[in-house]
Each structure stands twice: as structure tokens, then as C-alpha cells.
């Protein structure tokens, strides 16, 4: 290991750090080297979201050639709204999966949030009347308990949001779309505090805790809504969350903010790293990456601003609201995971819990916090799917909502063994699942076939994860 690379010329050396002393540490690579490096990493088992991206391309080609209506504008927009709730719940699950834990209750927990939200709206803010005395006081007690548990673990955001939920419930705040959404999210946070405390502090395996809560929350939903009942969400703002669109100007503004922001952040970071002589990818690779994303975003924005209505009477244009919602969550979540101390600690605990403990990281707090995040995001997912359907029934968040979300995260490349995964995995995996369901539906396949295919795809993704892990383990040393 003595071959010095010629790329690090002495002029590049930043003051203070004599790179020439530092053996063969390279800070910049040529494009060819980067490509070779990437291939080596692929062979080493670090696949990331590559299989899912390839799968996405294959599915797009297959379905657009088999079903004529697949690649129509109306269907694409529909696809986005269909997939959004699973993607959002999956994003929350990525945090849990990063620690090698599982949250089986995220689905029914989201259902609880949805039913509380609907009940509050339908009853005009009077939850006491909607739930009945005993249930209401138990509900408030649980919210208070969640706030106390979060405070015990110093997760102040959890305490604050649990108290917000308690306040909205106890003071009978009048119904309003924004209040409902806040209520749903804060109830989700409170649920996460309880789950997280049981896992991180009491020390029950997450599988058991969340399996039990999965059943319990299912019962809670039934109690809130009543057997065979349905709560309609008659509110324009709530309806628009999953069914509304941005105006044409708004769509392009979104493109400028999101695309421009992405390009500015990535390029700014890249050149500042180059300037300071830090490890950076080759400039052409970065430029191509940014270029592809911006062009794709522009094409998508343009397509979505065209009229996609089936009838000539109404005009439907604009980017659906779910797109900025998912984007905002994706950006914030990615920022938290990659650029903050908290995110670093999540990866560290997922990679080696003992090492994290010795490094002075509060492992229990981190473990609890991921469940809080997962349940809060599940609540946002609940808002989106309730809005899409327009009502909440006792099956909300039940069935395979959760398993689809876990599937989305795993198909996207998040490891079930912890330590490996990104938020965008949830988006890519969610897109794969949504396309399978949507495309098979358009091909008039019976539900049986759709489920079997979805299951096989998930199995494939999980085996790719397991095999790549084995590969990675065998290439070291």
C-alpha cells in the first residue's frame, strides 16, 4: 500500500495539514476513479437504493408498454396521491429500522390519529361528547402519561406535543382543519412516546411492544368510531391535502425553490469542500447528478401543469399538494439524519450500540426518540390517506398499511439489521409499491395476483439486503 496517487499535487495541500505526510490519503478523484470506486463498492455489497431504482425503471417500462392508460397524466397524478401516505409512514419507519428495531404499530397508531382527528372535526371540537366520559378521561390520562414519559427521557418535543394534544382535547378547541392536523400529529407523537418508553426504558423487545400495541390501537380505533361506523371529513382544507393541486404558477415556484435549492446546496457544498481540500466527488459526476435531477423535476412539473382532466367540463392542472408535503418531509428528515448531531447518533446506535454508549451517547434517549418520530410521521400519513378517502372508518391504518410501509423502506434499500438506510429509500420503495399496485390494477389483475406479486417483490428486496450484508461481511479482511 505505498502507491501514491498523482491526483494530490502539493499545491492542493491546505495549510496546517501536510497531506504529503499522510501516505496515500486522496481528497479528490478523477471521474474514472470514482466510477471504479463505485463499482468496487457495489461488488462489496453496498447496493444502497440501486436495485430499487433499477426495479422502478423496469416497472415503468413494463407497465407503460402493457397498459395504455398507465403513462397518462391523470394516472401519474393519481399514483402520487395513492403512494404518498405509505411513503410518509415509511419515512418514519426508516428511523426505527436504522436502529434495527421495528414498529409494527405504526399503521394502527396512524389509524388512532385519524379517528381522533375525524371525531374532533365531526363533533365540532367536543371530544368528551364524542368519546364518552370514561374513554375521554382515559385518553387524556394517556396523553399526560406520554408527556411525563417524554420528560423523563428529556425528549422535550415529545412532551410539548403531547401537552398540545392534551390541551386541544381538554379545552375543547373548536374544530378547524389546521387544529385537526395539529391534533393528529401530536396524538401520534404521544403514542410514539409511550411505545418508545416501553422499548427503550422498560426494555421490552420492540417487536413484542409494537405487536401488542398494534392490536390495542386497532381496538381503540373501533372504540372511537364504533362498529360499522364511518366519520366523514367534510372540510375543504382537509380534502385538499391529498386531492388538491398547486396552481400553475405555484407549481413552477415549487420547481424553482426545490430544484434551485437542491442545485445550490449540492453545488455550494461541493465547491466549498474542493476549496478547503476535503474529500469530494469529482466535479463532472456532481454536475451530471444535479443536472439530471433538475431536468427530471422540470419535465415532471411541466407535465403536471398540463390539463389532465378526463372530461372537457373541468380542468385539472398543477402539481398535487402531496408532492410538496413529501418533499418537505424528505428534506427536513434527510437534513436531520445527515447534518445534525442527532442524526449521526441515530446511525451510530444502529451501527454499534456499545460503541455509541461508550462514546457518551444517550442510547436509551435515541432509541425512544425514533419511535416518537415514526409515530408522528405515521400521523401525517394518516392525514393524507384520510384526506384521500374523505372519511375515516374502523379499518383506518389497519390491514396491510404498516406492512406496505415497512416494505417500501426495505425495497428502497433500508437494512432491517440497522445502521444502513436513508429517507429517500422510503420514497423510492414507496414508488415501486405504488406502481405495482396501480399498474396491476390497470391490467385488471385480481387482488390475489397483486398481493402475491407485491409479496414476492418485498421478498426479493429483503434477500438483496441479506445477501449484500453477507457479501460485505466476507469482503472485509
Amino acid at each position: 500500500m505505498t502507491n501514491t496517487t498523482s491526483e494530490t499535487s502539493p499545491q492542493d495541500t491546505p495549510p496546517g495539514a501536510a497531506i504529503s505526510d499522510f501516505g496515500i490519503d486522496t481528497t479528490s478523484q478523477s471521474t474514472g476513479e470514482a466510477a471504479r470506486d463505485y463499482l468496487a463498492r457495489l461488488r462489496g455489497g453496498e447496493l444502497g437504493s440501486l436495485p430499487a431504482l433499477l426495479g422502478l425503471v423496469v416497472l415503468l417500462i413494463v407497465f407503460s408498454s402493457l397498459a395504455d392508460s398507465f403513462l397518462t397524466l391523470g394516472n401519474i397524478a393519481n399514483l402520487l396521491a395513492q403512494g404518498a401516505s405509505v411513503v410518509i409512514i415509511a419515512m418514519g419507519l426508516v428511523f426505527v429500522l436504522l436502529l434495527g428495531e421495528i414498529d409494527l404499530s405504526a399503521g394502527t397508531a396512524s389509524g388512532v390519529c385519524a379517528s381522533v382527528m375525524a371525531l374532533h372535526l365531526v363533533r365540532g371540537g367536543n371530544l368528551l361528547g364524542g368519546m364518552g366520559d370514561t374513554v375521554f378521561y382515559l385518553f387524556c390520562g394517556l396523553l399526560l402519561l406520554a408527556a411525563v414519559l417524554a420528560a423523563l427521557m428529556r425528549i422535550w418535543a415529545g412532551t410539548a406535543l403531547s401537552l398540545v394534544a392534551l390541551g386541544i382535547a381538554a379545552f375543547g378547541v373548536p374544530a378547524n382543519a389546521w387544529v385537526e392536523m395539529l391534533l393528529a400529529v401530536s396524538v401520534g407523537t404521544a403514542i410514539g412516546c409511550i411505545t418508545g418508553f416501553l422499548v427503550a426504558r422498560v426494555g421490552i423487545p420492540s417487536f413484542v411492544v409494537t405487536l401488542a400495541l398494534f392490536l390495542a390501537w386497532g381496538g381503540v380505533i373501533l372504540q372511537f368510531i364504533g362498529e360499522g361506523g364511518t366519520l366523514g371529513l367534510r372540510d375543504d382544507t382537509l380534502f385538499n391535502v391529498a386531492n388538491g393541486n398547486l396552481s400553475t404558477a405555484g407549481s413552477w415556484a415549487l420547481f424553482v425553490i426545490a430544484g434551485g435549492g437542491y442545485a445550490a446546496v449540492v453545488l455550494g457544498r461541493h465547491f466549498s469542500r474542493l476549496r478547503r481540500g476535503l474529500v469530494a466527488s469529482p466535479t463532472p459526476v456532481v454536475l451530471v447528478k444535479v443536472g439530471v435531477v433538475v431536468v427530471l423535476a422540470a419535465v415532471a412539473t411541466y407535465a403536471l401543469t398540463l390539463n389532465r382532466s378526463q372530461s372537457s367540463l373541468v380542468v385539472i392542472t398543477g402539481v398535487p399538494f402531496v408532492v410538496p408535503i413529501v418533499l418537505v418531509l424528505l428534506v427536513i428528515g434527510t437534513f436531520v439524519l445527515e447534518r445534525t448531531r442527532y442524526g449521526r447518533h441515530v446511525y451510530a446506535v444502529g451501527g454499534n450500540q456499545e460503541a455509541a454508549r461508550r462514546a457518551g451517547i444517550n442510547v436509551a434517549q435515541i432509541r425512544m426518540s425514533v419511535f416518537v418520530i415514526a409515530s408522528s410521521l405515521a400521523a401525517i400519513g394518516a392525514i393524507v390517506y384520510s384526506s384521500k378517502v374523505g372519511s375515516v372508518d374502523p379499518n383506518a391504518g389497519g390491514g396491510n398499511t404498516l406492512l406496505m410501509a415497512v416494505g417500501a423502506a426495505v425495497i428502497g434499500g433500508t437494512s432491517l439489521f440497522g445502521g444502513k438506510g436513508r429517507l429517500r429509500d422510503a420514497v423510492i420503495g414507496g414508488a415501486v409499491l405504488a406502481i405495482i399496485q396501480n399498474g396491476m390494477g390497470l391490467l385488471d389483475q385480481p387482488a390475489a395476483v397483486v398481493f402475491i406479486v407485491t409479496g414476492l417483490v418485498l421478498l426479493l428486496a429483503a434477500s438483496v439486503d441479506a445477501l449484500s450484508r453477507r457479501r460485505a461481511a466476507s469482503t472485509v479482511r
Partner: protein
Amino acid sequence: MSEPILELRGINKSFGPVHVLHDIDFDVHPGQVTALVGDNGAGKSTLVKCIAGIHPMDSGQVLFNGEEVHIHGPRDAAHLGIEVVYQDLALCDNLDIVQNMFLGRERGKLGLLDEADMEQAARKTLTSLSVRTVKSVRTQVASLSGGQRQTVAIAKAVLWNSKVVLLDEPTAALGVAQTRQVLDLVRRLAEQGLGVVLISHNMNDVFEVADRIACLYLGRMAAEVNTKDVTHGQVVELITAGRSGDLGIARPETATI
């Protein structure tokens, strides 16, 4: 000889009814490698964990730079500049070298990370230790060899302007060439003026890098000697029997009189 940077006086430690450490006196001098040897169960790792603040001491005095200090937890030890490199490396496979070196003590404001600053500091530390075996400071630890990992673990301990570094069997799982790298690194730490404590079962390693040898026998400090004053055989006797000639714990009959 220079003043010791870390002095332990009369340390006792019990786990329930098991008295693990009996009145241990132990000195660490700056710029020297002190080897801590002893048979399995002699209390080496317990002593190190007491110094690191992982186990509380039952009684005894700790002097750091001549002043009495109280170590109640790993944080206290870290504040004093005492760093430990554990037997089972405390590294996260899924993070890269820089991320591991700064784990738990990331730089940056308001919870945000200052990657550039950390990367430069990590590179500077590795440079100062003349580490030439890693390709890039952004390499994931999962893809490093055992020796490279140990190097990263040691560099992590040095990063914090530490004054005392405790190494718990750093060469136990390494091959010949990798052991070489790590021993060179240990020597370099001492040359930089740090007090180094090396726990090892390997007498060749001990005689190669240590200036002084402290031998534990059944939880008692049998002897603290200069490496050049003793032979291989004497140290082995100290380890297995607690004494060798007039070195070590006195014979029981003389001790009782």
C-alpha cells in the same frame, strides 16, 4: 524520572463478595509506556475500567498532575484527558473514519455538524501519528482491516489532546504486520509526551515498547519495575506466582511476621 501524570493510591474494588482489587498503587508517567500485565482474572481490565470511570472505585485516591481528582463516570475521565481504547473496538462499522473519531463529541453549532472542521482535524491527527495505511479519511470503517481499525481507535483517543491513553490488549487479534503498525503507533504516542498504559498478554510486545512494567497478581500490585531491570523469565514468574526472587509480593511467612 518525571513526575507521574496519573497516580493511584490504595485502590480497592469489589464486585459483591468478590474483592477484585486490593490496595492498588499505580503510576503513569508522561512520555512513557507502562505495561500492565497479569494473568487472566488478575484485575487488569477492572483497573482500567476504574480509571476510565466505568466502574466506581470503593476506596482509594486518584491524583492527576499531583492533584486529587474524583472520577464518577466516563465523562469525568474524558475531561481530565484520559482516553481508553477497548479490547473490543468501540467503532461503528457503518460510519466512516472521521465520523467514528468524533463520535459523541461532534463539532458544530446548535446540533449541526461541521464536517469540514472535523475532517481536517481528523486528517491532522492521523498525519501527526504518521498513519499511512488508510486510503481516505472518508473510508467506511467496515472496509478497514483489523490493524487499520485499531489505528483509528487509537487515533480517536489521541484526537482529544488526551494526556493518558489506556490500551486494553490492542494487538490481541492482529497479525504480525498489523501488530507492528500498532506497536509503532503506541511508541509514537509516548514520544509525543502522553502517558500510555498498555495491557498485553504478549511478552514480546511488552518488552519491545514498554518502559516500565506493572504486574498484577490476584488483584494485588506485585511489582512495578523498569523494563531494562528485569528479564522475560522474571516477568513471567511475577505473573504466574506473584513474585520472583526478591521482587514481588513477599512470601506469606515473612509477611505475617
